[in-house]
């Protein structure tokens, strides 16, 4: 489909492993469909920040997507805990949230996220959006 961009894409590190931290079962299910079946990514979903921390070392995500509002550990707290792990200090993170006032977006970005995806999202377009975010990252942020 993107034949023209093939050489360029091959030079970059491909995004394959995404971790999604989201407490809502419905959203996890639709994100699985959106990112695995539609996007072809390898996805691990975690129902809580705690679960994400447990799964981190095994799965070694290249990109982490976090829901902001979750019971227990919320998204920002989870990200902070992830950052304490030396292997994941720089792993790009994206917040997903239903609140997208500009000042709030800046707040999330200042907490170390590379982007904010507003909820609700279109399941058919989510993979494209994530690929866009990935391709706009600095090369050194795109780890294997």
């Amino acid at each position, binding site marked *: *489909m993107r034949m023209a961009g093939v050489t360029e894409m091959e030079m970059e590190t491909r995004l*394959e492993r995404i971790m999604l931290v989201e407490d*809502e079962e*419905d*959203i996890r*299910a*639709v994100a699985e*469909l959106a990112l*695995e*079946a*539609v*996007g*072809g990514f*390898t996805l691990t979903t975690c129902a809580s920040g705690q679960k994400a921390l447990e799964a981190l070392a095994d799965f070694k995500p290249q990109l982490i997507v976090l829901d902001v*509002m979750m*019971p227990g550990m919320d998204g920002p707290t989870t990200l902070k805990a992830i950052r304490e792990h030396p292997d994941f200090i720089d792993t790009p993170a994206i917040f*997903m*949230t*239903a609140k997208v006032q500009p000042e709030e977006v800046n707040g999330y970005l200042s907490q170390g996220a590379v982007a904010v995806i507003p*909820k*609700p*999202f*279109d*399941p*058919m*377009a989510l*993979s*494209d959006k994530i690929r866009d975010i990935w391709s706009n990252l600095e090369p050194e942020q795109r780890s294997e």
Partner: protein
Amino acid sequence: MSEENVSEIARKLEVLKLRFKEKAAKDISRLQQAAEQFRVGRFGPNDVVAAYHSLHRLAGSAGTFGYTVLGEEARALEVLLKPLAEINGELAPAQVQRVVDLAFVSRVASLVDSLSLDPVASQRTGAALLPVTVEAATDAVALVVHSDPEQAQNLVQGLELHGFFPVAVPSLKRAVEHGLADVSVLVVKDAKMLSEGSVLESVADTPPIVCVGAGDSFDERYALAECGVDGFLCEPVDVPLLADTMERLITEREESGSGRVMIVDDDPELLEHYGLVLEQGGLKVWRVNNPADILGALSEFRPDIVLMDVQMGTFRGPDLARLLRFEPEWLGLPIIYLSSENDREYQTDALAKGGDDFLVKPVSDAFLLRAVSVRCYRARQLDKLVSRDSLTGLLKHSVARSEINKEYVRCQRRGEQAVVAMLDLDHFKHVNDRYGHRTGDLVIKGLANLLRHQLRKSDVIGRYGGEEFVVALPNCSLIDASRVLQSVCEHMAGIGFQSDGQEFHVTLSVGIVPLQNYLTSDDAIDAADQALYRRKQAGRNGVTVGEEAPITERTQV
């Protein structure tokens, strides 16, 4: 992306939407009750925050499932409630009542109306989608119709673990509205079936129906049978048994009318006529006009039965049959002669040369179709008996091994990669000793059904021995295989099996290796077995990748 994948994704999305709708309806009704209480000043310490979170969730998710109006309205209500939710400390009733007034309550109540608006169909078409790299497993959608929401939820959760894609719907009418074309099976509370079963009369092709209920008298069961019910289980429902019943009904349904027939006739017009009659009856037909083509056609098409004219120019059917039997592969293939020969002597003589049956011409179209369908079904059953394990319906040891070898050869030829896995139930002897063999068998069937659902149609699944299974995943990377089988392990561990009112769980150990990295397919199977052994030593319940195989290797599809 193939059209099939697009429609598969669309179908799954529909199921998720439906599931969201059912859940949102419950959330809204709970919210409405809460709001009515708030309005009269009745609430506990966390009630307002809980309502706020519930609205926030709806605002964030409804749009994803196509309920944009609902999402926006929930968002507006969330904003109103937010200042209250952010107050630390006790709320005064008056504070809450200032926000949650009559107007607020009625706005909450009317959220449910926007739920009945049909979700906006996604404008995007398949062309806009990105390629799919991992073929989706074929989930069987099961609609659960139960009068008790809690029981319905239990069934949904239980069936999910068995690899079904269950959706709870409140009535049979709603099930019909949802459309039954993509539904593999209906699970219905017996009383619902008796009172609402008539709505199914308008549906041309209903999926198999399994009823659950307390009534186990002859009269009650007879009434259900009269309604066309295919299976019945007593409540409380033994979920593994239910899953097994559903599985059996789905397989039976898939196999009826799906026969493969090869017709050999030198008369092109008759050939075409028979072909059309059988195709219209739902059978797959391969036409052979020149008898000399028969061997090549057989290898390619692999029919259930062969329908053959007795006299075809210089060729005679019985001699052709005899020639086929030269190949051990076709020794078991049923050959049916179509002949105007009425002479019993001649018929017997022809059968002695390797035929199986006679259909005497002229035959009516209807008779031909029925006669051929029945023989296809029968041939398939027999074939299953030979190649399939009777308990699980999976491939037998020797057949699985030879299928894996075929896959190995394919990998070598095309430079593709595949994964072979050995699976073994943990501490299975304890299960048999403690709960008896009947229960043990149910556990084995449970895993077999789980594998059938979670893996793809193209995957090879075999029962290797007692509690040991072998799986080959064509066109699959180690990472993907590991993920899929890890998920099988998790599902398996989650299934609650029952024996004498006791619930117990059984876990699964798996060893995997890349099939193409070994000298022979048997070497690969042995290596997978060693990986399995290491998994057992490392604490069971999970997937271990064979050591020779670097995990970094990955498919670039």
